[in-house]
């Protein structure tokens, strides 16, 4: 067996080019798999550690206001380990370095000490204490965006009262891993920040003494979570509470979990394709090797080697190739994983994001790299068993061919022998044709999948921010304003036009499903906010009933005509039963809208607005900002352009690196598959082609025969490749479809074109190789030693 081992290494050397292209496939697959799996695991571990160490609450309740003593009553009862009452309020910030207003969420904490739950992780400075100055700790994301640190000051307007704040510390919290405003749940660190402030100060600013409007609970898990929630809901009902939410509905955690799971979905799929293609390639290459080495195999057999020993010999060859690829892939995965994780640092605010290459990732990577390849190899070794040792002594029998049914139809009779040769080479080995087409299709599909993400994100953002939300700025007011107030806004310099509408937080229930969201009453002729159908055509707001996001149709099984129950969560408590008239295709988040007149009618309201959409004069934008910032009743200001940019900065930026890596790998694979198929085609036909040259065929006609075959294979692969790409994009989009992002399946023609171009480039490279090969054909040798 020692000699056979030497043969393994010699053959590896001969098969260099194939070894390299298979290795690339495996390295790509394993690198992606290992990196993303370890990133997934690392993120999960960091999150769990952080949540546990800093006592992230299990339940979250908010209500209008309740006396602080109520906490004692709430805590009596089974299942509660700790409970903490707080004040949580939003205020409008004035930050020295930006003109446009920003929104801050202020969370009360005890003076100078950590809260019991959702403990802060102080990055810089210290906790705030009750002093003559109003001390606050600022969330790291906002601090970084504005270069703020201990000692800096800024002003805030809370409930119409202006106050100067002194920053004494920079911190993060498990409650705000992902700093999101409830008003515009998209990352925008420049215009949204979280602050922790001693309770007394916030009470004074909010004019709420010994009161709380928010409760967080840690469970001891002796009682079912639902029971505790139900009891708390009952106790807090008189205080205008919104229903308690568990972690799965907590905004930051929801995003964190969604993001981590998305990572998992996307990353499993692409490596799987890479590895499947690699297994197919190994199968093809090894089958060919066995075919070529028939005499050798027969000789070995006649010398007394068993089938198992011979198969083992070839499997060793495969094993060395896949082992090399897998180990390199694991190493590559470690580095890529580390790099990927650092892109998350600016996105998720964890105390530390430590990358760890755990043993499962390594084992998973090695197994995914080695086993499919070995399987592909094993399947190609069946021929070894069928071979009789006597064959070594015979001249090679020509591979068996028969006229197929296509020829029986007589379609080819008029073709020249050369043309027949061409067509038969192509179709008489259907398995090989299939494998090649599959390989090229898969390569096309991978390129399409990798690029489709940016297509979909672009489409999503473009639709949301250009077609659905058409305003420049959206201003939310503390209290509903009479219709005439819009005229005042119109007078502000820089404001071009104003449209008002009404929103109210509600809880909708359908069958046994419940959800809290903003219900909007909008005038049917509203220009700056439009609801669109799947073809992006504006939907007219029905005069009665509700228009909901398509999410409810898909996930809740709702149909037009169904009735849902709506309960208001602000102002006077009202419960109404309303019909659903249709569904709109929103891109971000979920919504419920109805006709504004209908809104006023069912909620028994005087005509009023609490949100104004503004179009601004681009040259006077700053003036408009400043004027709005100083209006007492203004509660939130959302700048569309800023939101758009913030979203792109963080979210798109984070995806970008991973996607770029996938695109590079996809290119390599596409090139590898095509080049390999050209090579295999060439070596399979080299002997025939040499015979043709000997008979007097021109070089060019031989090259045309060889390239023609690849060209036809490519042509046959293009549409299956496009279809496969679309299918993959579709299933991935479906898998990552969340409430927050309704990923539409959009692939721009450019993406199809790009993938086809890459494949064509690979063909050009292969053509150059073929031309060189044919030119260097040594006619004499090829005829003597039939390889």
């Amino acid at each position, binding site marked *: 067996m020692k000699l056979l081992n030497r043969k393994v290494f010699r053959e590896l050397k001969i098969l260099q080019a194939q070894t390299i292209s298979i290795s690339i496939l495996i390295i790509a697959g394993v690198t992606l798999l290992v990196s993303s799996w370890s990133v997934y695991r690392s993120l999960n571990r960091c999150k769990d550690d952080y949540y546990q160490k800093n006592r992230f609450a299990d339940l979250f309740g908010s209500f209008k206001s309740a006396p602080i003593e109520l906490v004692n009553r709430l805590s009596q009862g089974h299942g509660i380990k700790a409970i903490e009452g707080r004040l949580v309020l939003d205020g409008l910030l004035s930050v020295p370095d930006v003109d446009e207003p920003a929104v801050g969420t202020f969370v009360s904490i005890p003076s100078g000490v950590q809260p019991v739950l959702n403990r802060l992780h102080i990055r810089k400075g210290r906790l705030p204490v009750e002093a003559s100055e109003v001390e606050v700790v600022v969330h790291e994301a906002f601090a970084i965006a504005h270069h703020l640190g201990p000692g800096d000051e800024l002003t805030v307007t809370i409930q119409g009262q202006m106050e100067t704040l002194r920053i004494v510390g920079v911190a993060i919290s498990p409650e705000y891993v992902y700093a999101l405003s409830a008003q515009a749940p998209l990352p925008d660190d420049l215009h949204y920040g979280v602050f922790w402030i001693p309770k007394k100060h916030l009470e004074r600013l909010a004019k709420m003494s010994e009161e709380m409007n928010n409760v967080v609970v840690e469970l001891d898990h002796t009682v079912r979570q639902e029971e505790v929630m139900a009891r708390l809901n009952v106790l807090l009902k008189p205080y205008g509470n919104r229903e308690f939410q568990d972690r799965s509905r907590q905004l930051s955690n929801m995003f964190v979990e969604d993001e981590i799971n998305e990572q998992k979905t996307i990353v499993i799929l692409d490596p799987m394709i890479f590895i499947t293609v690699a297994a197919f390639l190994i199968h093809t290459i090894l089958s060919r090797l066995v075919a070529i080495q028939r005499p050798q195999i027969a000789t070995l057999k006649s010398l007394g080697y068993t089938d198992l020993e011979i198969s083992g010999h070839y499997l060793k060859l495969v094993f060395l190739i896949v082992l090399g690829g897998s180990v390199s892939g694991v190493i590559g995965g470690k580095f890529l994983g580390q790099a990927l994780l650092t892109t998350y640092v600016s996105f998720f605010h964890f105390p530390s994001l430590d990358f760890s290459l755990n043993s499962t990732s390594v084992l998973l990577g090695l197994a995914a790299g080695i086993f499919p390849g070995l399987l592909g190899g094993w399947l190609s070794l069946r021929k070894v068993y069928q071979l009789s040792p006597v064959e070594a002594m015979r001249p090679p029998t020509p591979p068996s061919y028969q006229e197929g049914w296509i020829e029986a139809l007589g379609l080819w009779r008029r073709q020249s*022998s050369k043309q027949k040769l061409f067509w038969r080479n192509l179709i008489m080995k259907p398995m090989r044709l299939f494998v090649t087409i599959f390989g090229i299709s898969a390569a096309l599909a991978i390129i399409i999948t990798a690029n489709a993400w940016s297509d979909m994100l672009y489409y999503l953002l473009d639709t949301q921010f250009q077609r659905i939300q058409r305003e420049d700025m959206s201003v939310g007011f503390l209290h509903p304003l009479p219709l005439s107030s819009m005229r005042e806004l119109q007078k502000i310099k820089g404001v071009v036009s104003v449209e008002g509408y009404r929103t109210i937080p509600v809880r909708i229930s359908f069958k046994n499903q419940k959800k809290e969201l903003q219900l909007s009453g909008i005038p049917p002729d509203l220009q700056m906010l439009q609801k669109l159908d799947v073809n992006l055509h504006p939907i007219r707001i029905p005069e009665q009933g509700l228009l909901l996001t398509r999410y409810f149709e898909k996930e809740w099984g709702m149909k037009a005509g169904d009735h849902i129950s709506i309960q208001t969560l602000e102002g006077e408590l009202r419960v109404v039963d309303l019909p659903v008239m249709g569904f709109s295709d929103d891109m971000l988040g979920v919504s419920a809208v109805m006709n504004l007149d209908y809104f006023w009618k069912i909620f028994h309201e005087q005509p009023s607005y609490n949100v104004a959409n503004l179009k601004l004069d681009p040259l006077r934008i700053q003036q408009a900002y400043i004027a709005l910032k100083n209006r007492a009743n203004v509660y939130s200001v959302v700048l569309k352009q800023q939101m758009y940019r913030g979203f792109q900065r963080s979210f798109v930026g984070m995806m970008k690196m991973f996607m770029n890596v996938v695109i590079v790998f996809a290119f390599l694979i596409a090139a590898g598959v095509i080049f390999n198929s050209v090579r295999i085609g060439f070596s399979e036909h080299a002997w025939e082609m040499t015979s043709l040259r000997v008979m007097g065929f021109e070089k060019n006609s031989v090259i045309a025969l060889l390239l023609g075959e690849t060209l036809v294979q490519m042509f046959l692969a293009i549409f299956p490749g496009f279809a496969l790409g679309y299918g993959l994009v579709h299933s991935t989009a479906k898998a990552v479809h969340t409430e927050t992002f309704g990923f539409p399946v959009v692939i721009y023609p450019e993406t199809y074109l790009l993938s086809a171009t890459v494949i064509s480039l690979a063909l050009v490279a292969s053509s150059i190789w073929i031309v060189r090969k044919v030119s260097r054909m040594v006619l004499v040798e090829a005829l003597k030693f039939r390889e």
Partner: protein
Amino acid sequence: MTRSGKVVFSARNLTKIYQTGEVPVHALRGIDLELVSGEMVVILGPSGSGKSTFLNILGGLDQPTSGEVFYGDHNLVTSTEKELTAFRRDHVGFVFQFYNLIPTLTAEENVQLVTDISPHPMQASEALQMVGLTDRARHFPSQLSGGEQQRVAIARAVAKRPDILLCDEPTGALDFETGKKVLESILRVNQETGTLVAIITHNAAIAGLGDRVIRMANGLIQSITQNEKRKSLEEIEW
């Protein structure tokens, strides 16, 4: 046939040195020979004697290291690759030890492969008839025996009406009976069409079939024997 025919090939002081690895191999060390139209030449020699190299140079598959080869008044040594391709296509028929048929083409189509590109070919069916394979025309190589495959190769080689038929160990892979059938086809081509035939073999029994027997060893011609009378197939045995 006698040596009175027109000179088709003349080789002068042909040498061929292969540089394989570090040791130069002298395959031909100075060959002078003329081949005339219509004759049947058997080139005998052990392996490594240079006979295949000589044949490949005659057929335009290989170039000598020095010396000259003329096909008529056309110098093959100074020919471009394109000219050599045309020379092979129009004038030379090859028959190899391992047949070299295209497995995806039937017997007839393998022959047509040549008739498609030759200036004055015979019908593929005519060529197959000459080797006695009319009834196997629509069989693929895998459906033919070794001898039949070799006869298809002969039909393919002669279908273009070559000026010379070069056969490299045509019976090397065949048993005695099948080998004889193949030789019969070759003889028939020579007799019926008057094609110059050169057969390379290490099988001395075949020597009797030729007009001339050229014995080679170590890259040199050892002897040239003129057979007064060619033997018939029945008379030879190996």
